[in-house]
């Protein structure tokens, strides 16, 4: 009997040490600030967030701030990262999203890059008469962000 109790306790303890949840959390407008530029997240539709391997969430007010943080962080600590869809306001995993650099589009830190669910959605947005350049995630890591020093 004791053996079974011991096994049950072990299972319970190990289940508590399970995989980190890499699900994006909701933005708290009252308290969330960008981990890079310290701006409060007042335009949730442009927000991004990063979940570290230990489960810590960092939020960003603009995709550009997220990319800057990823470029400077220890890549081993990166769990997952998300950006808001420019059309649906849903969270998108940055690795599966498509991007458009649209200099005429306002973003909180003027990085002017919007995220879309996939390339088709991004191309459709451009075909609608918007000016911009289609980008992949890898393009962003070395992107010339224009206005930024």
């Amino acid at each position, binding site marked *: 009997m004791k053996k079974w109790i011991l096994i049950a306790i072990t299972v319970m303890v190990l289940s508590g040490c399970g995989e980190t949840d890499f699900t994006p959390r909701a933005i708290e407008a009252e308290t969330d600030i960008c981990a890079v530029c310290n701006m409060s997240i*007042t335009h949730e539709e442009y927000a991004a967030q990063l979940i570290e391997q230990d489960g810590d969430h960092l939020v960003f007010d603009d995709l550009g701030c997220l990319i800057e943080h990823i470029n400077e962080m220890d890549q081993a600590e990166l769990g997952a990262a998300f950006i808001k869809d420019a059309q649906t306001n849903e969270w998108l995993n940055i690795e599966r999203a498509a991007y458009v650099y649209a200099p005429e589009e306002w973003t909180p830190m003027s990085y002017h890059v919007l995220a879309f669910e996939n390339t088709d959605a991004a191309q459709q947005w451009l075909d609608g008469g918007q000016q911009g350049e289609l980008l992949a995630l890898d393009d962003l890591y070395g992107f010339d962000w224009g206005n930024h020093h």
Partner: protein
Amino acid sequence: MKRIVLLWTLFLLWPGIGYAESLQQTIDGLPAGSELVLEPVVYHEAVSITKPLTITGVPGTNFQVDGESPAISIENTQDVQIRNVDIEQGDTAVLIKSSENITIEEIEVSEAGQAMEVHDSKTLTFRELLVEGPAGHYSAKGNGVALYNSEDIQVSDSTIRHMRDGIYAEKTTNLQTSGNRIENSRYGVHLMYSRQADLSKNELSENVAGVMLMMTEDSRIQKNTIHEHTSPNASGLVLYEAQNIQVTGNVISANALGLSLQKVKNSQVTENKFYGNQIGMEFIRSAENNTRGNEFTGNIVQLRSDALGGMLAGNYYDDASLLDLDEDGYGDTSYTALQSYGQWMVRKPAYQYFIEAPAVVLLNEMDRQMNSMESAVLMDSKPLAKPPSEANGNPPMSLWRLFLGAMLLALGGWIWKKESTA
């Protein structure tokens, strides 16, 4: 018979009522350069101005416009002046686009989503605005004065409360703000990608940040009073990715964080007074800036930094134990800013209740002794022996205090003499 006469009279008057001009029709009918004095009535229509014009209200002139149209739009024109008008409700009170030489003064705006919004315009003056934002969280509001791609702007002697940002400027050149009072908003003044801004003699309080200056250069922040920014993540001033900024002569008091420099280059922080902040000043990737002549008094943590540190020279610190034996005005030993307990207090504010506990006093003294032996990243090799405010002239003599002291001394002597003779 009387009824027939009454109906006939109404019939005669009806066309006159039906064809009364709207305000927009009146404006359209005026020649360029005219002056229009408004009636003391409530206007429920949005108006558009596209020619030089002076519009003056009187007490009781009020605009109440529902929907998304701005109450007053000024587009593609010049030489427009609007003064003494109240604007209530609405999405945007005044919208200015592609215009030049516009003056907006003595305007009271309440409950509007955004008070003043300016795009691609030049030479604008906003004076004596009173802006009171609607209830609710700042993320759901607009700004007091929002400027985009504009130049030569003055905002002065205005009061702005309960908005997102009191003054927001994006890609704007030569913005001058002075004598404004901005409170209970997200940022008092928020500059992005701007140049040659001058913020002088403003009072900024109880915002998330008094000044948020980002990607901006060649600007001055001087003689402002910046106090009581104490909410979560609050700061008196935050300078981010900025260069050639002068922060001079400001009083920065009772903030969670007085001044934060983040990725700032070639800037000067001089002759400011940091009083009673939780953290006086912090440096993040901003080691190469000149910080001198400042007074750090009563801050829980005077200074903190990342590993790169900050450049300090000739500041006054009230927690420095200094001797000035050669009387040159500077301490004979250097000052190093490091307080272990203070750093912990920043994370756990409740620790402040133990600040004078014997163990904490001992810890602070150990810090002081250790700091004098090690080279640290936040070291002032020439700390001021006296606060600049005291050094800049003789301390004021208080005659009534002198008289009171003399009277108390005389009273004490009289009591002592009376007791001794009794």
